[in-house]
């Protein structure tokens, strides 16, 4: 859209009898011609070329041409129900550590004042930033191959911040040239209802309370943590790594391991090898990624597919791993790579893979991964959680987080 020059319109002189407004007497500017490289500027397959308008022309046809021109090159966002919607909080997308400290130590008023005073300073990238950038790169490739399809990623900024922080957030989005056009700034209210309204497929937040609320409401969600050191991740290929139990699969096997130990766990898994595990909170997201991968395969892009998925599990290839693979197969899903670590730490393996994000239900693994430079996200689901889910809806007494 920025490649199209604006038409210059001169105001009608005072003595014309026409009504005020945008009536035109003469237009001298040249209406833009579509640059050939602009693949998106096709209107029904034809290219529109406009000629300079001279002399007195009727205003309605000029107006109509302007309308047509405005529509060219506009990439409409997909409807939420057709797209794969990723909701990300402001603290997951941007680094707001300093501001978070101010909020916790000095309270709301000082926090808001600080944000407003620093409105023109864009935030630095946060832990989910590289993931979002990679998601956008996938969208670009998808639009090239399927220009009319709405099966794309749709990124929504879902923050409980007040709109006072809005301008700084929008400035930051502009600065980093993100394609983020949808957002909800809920002014302190819970984002859960809005997540549902957007048919959210994945919610990433830095606030574990909100993430738990989302999981309990049936929305795939994870708490994102900043890596201990910066790792370079690919810009043109989105890489997502998943733990198996209690992330892709239910926590049923983990329960057995916790209750009866490792041997019983192996026995049980071997005996039930052919019985698919129940699904976990992130199965749907893997499924969504798989659908998009199929679209690339259909266009002959299997080898250099811009989406790559990994299963990184503590199960071992020789025994308990079989059930995991068979379960995935029974769902019609697969990951590009499956790594069975047989209990070995996940950090070093992830360091080699360099995924944009790694989902695990156990903080031990999340911390281990983060230490070695992977953006790790905690999925608060299943038996491994130290804090049980709220049973009586009592209000949580910990400081309410604004993000």
């Amino acid at each position, binding site marked *: 859209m920025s490649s199209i020059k604006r038409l210059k319109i001169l105001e009608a002189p005072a003595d014309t009898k026409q009504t005020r*407004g945008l009536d035109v007497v003469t237009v001298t500017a040249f209406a833009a011609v579509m640059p050939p490289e602009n693949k998106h500027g096709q209107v029904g397959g034809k290219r529109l070329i406009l000629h300079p308008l001279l002399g007195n022309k009727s205003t309605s046809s000029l107006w109509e041409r*302007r309308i047509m021109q*405005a529509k060219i090159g506009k990439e409409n*966002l997909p409807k939420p129900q057709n797209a794969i919607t990723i909701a990300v909080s402001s603290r997951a997308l941007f680094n707001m550590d300093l501001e978070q400290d101010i909020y916790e130590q000095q309270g709301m*008023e000082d926090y808001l004042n600080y944000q407003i005073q620093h409105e023109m300073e864009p935030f630095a990238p946060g832990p989910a930033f590289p993931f979002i950038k990679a998601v956008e790169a996938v969208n670009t490739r998808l639009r090239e191959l399927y220009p009319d399809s709405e099966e794309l990623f749709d990124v929504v900024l879902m923050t409980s911040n007040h709109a006072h922080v*809005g301008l700084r957030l*929008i400035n930051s*989005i502009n600065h980093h040239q993100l394609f983020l056009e949808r957002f909800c700034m809920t002014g302190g209210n819970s984002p859960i209802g809005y997540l549902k*309204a957007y048919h959210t497929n994945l919610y990433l937040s830095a606030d574990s309370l909100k993430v738990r609320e989302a999981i309990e409401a049936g929305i795939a969600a994870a708490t994102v943590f900043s890596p201990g050191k910066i790792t370079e991740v690919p810009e043109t290929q989105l890489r997502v790594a998943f733990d198996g139990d209690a992330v892709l699969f239910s926590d049923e096997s983990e329960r057995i391991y916790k209750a009866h130990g490792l041997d019983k766990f192996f026995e049980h898994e071997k005996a039930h090898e052919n019985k698919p595990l129940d699904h976990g909170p992130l199965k749907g997201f893997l499924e969504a990624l798989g659908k998009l991968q199929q679209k690339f395969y259909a266009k002959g892009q299997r080898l250099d597919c811009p989406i790559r998925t990994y299963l990184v599990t503590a199960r071992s290839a020789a025994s308990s791993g079989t059930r995991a693979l068979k379960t995935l197969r029974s769902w019609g899903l697969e990951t590009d790579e499956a790594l069975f670590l047989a209990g070995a730490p996940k950090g070093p393996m992830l360091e080699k893979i360099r995924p944009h994000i790694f989902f695990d239900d156990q903080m031990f693994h999340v911390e281990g991964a983060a230490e070695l430079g992977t953006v790790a996200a905690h999925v608060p689901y299943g038996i491994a959680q130290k804090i049980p889910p709220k049973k009586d809806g009592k209000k949580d007494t910990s400081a309410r987080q604004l993000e």
Partner: protein
Amino acid sequence: MENKKNHAGPLMIALQHDDLFDLNSVSTNTELPKGRAFTFIKAVQTVNERLVEQNKNESLLFEVILITKECSEDVKMKIVESVKHYDLEIGKFYFCKKEELKNTLQSNKVKLFLSTDRDDVHEALHSGISAALLYDQADHRVLKQLKVIFSGDVLGFSEDSLESYLEFELSEKQIETVKAAKICVKEFAVLIGQMRRRFGPENSPICICVLTTWGSRNVCASALKTLREWGLDVDEAFCLAGAPAHPILSIVNPHILWDGGFHNMRDLATLS
């Protein structure tokens, strides 16, 4: 600061009686059954209570006047009785013909005319009256907070962003109406902004929201800046970029939805 408070005066809002009371259902009671504007009136009264709590001599309070088209003496009596019965703070009653509406509103310095009927609102906007939709709240619980939504698409309008409005195929006349509506609502916005500032960011009885349904994030930013210039701080902001508005609206659950008639023009199914 003292002067500001004294000069502010009440913020006049007008309602129609058939929104306040349900005239269709038959009842044997002396009072009329509650209509769709009830939660609004109660929310407004909550705001006034909180304002007076802070300052006994507060002059910037909401004042609601009731407009009624010509009707029988019987109905007139019922209306007055019902207002008393429900203990509603209605400042004045006006029984007037449709043509007199504009004059009645102007002479009473009404800053906002509210109706649950979209066409009514649209007509009022066309004749230069500052008007907004009284949103039919699905949830009739009385909230302790008055929620007002302003359209970011209309407030964020500027000559620079004209191009982005053209995709919506608005005619020149409609663009002019959008510009006029923006100017029209300023007085209301300034006053409610002053009211809003009597409270802090948390625990406020007024909640100001900006909803941008089609405009880009920069249009939304422009709307936020405009409101800030007018002294109105925004609490919640939503930018939909074409996503359906109804699911979001049902969560926000506003009392007042001001969009300068933008959605009528656009005939968007998204807001239904």
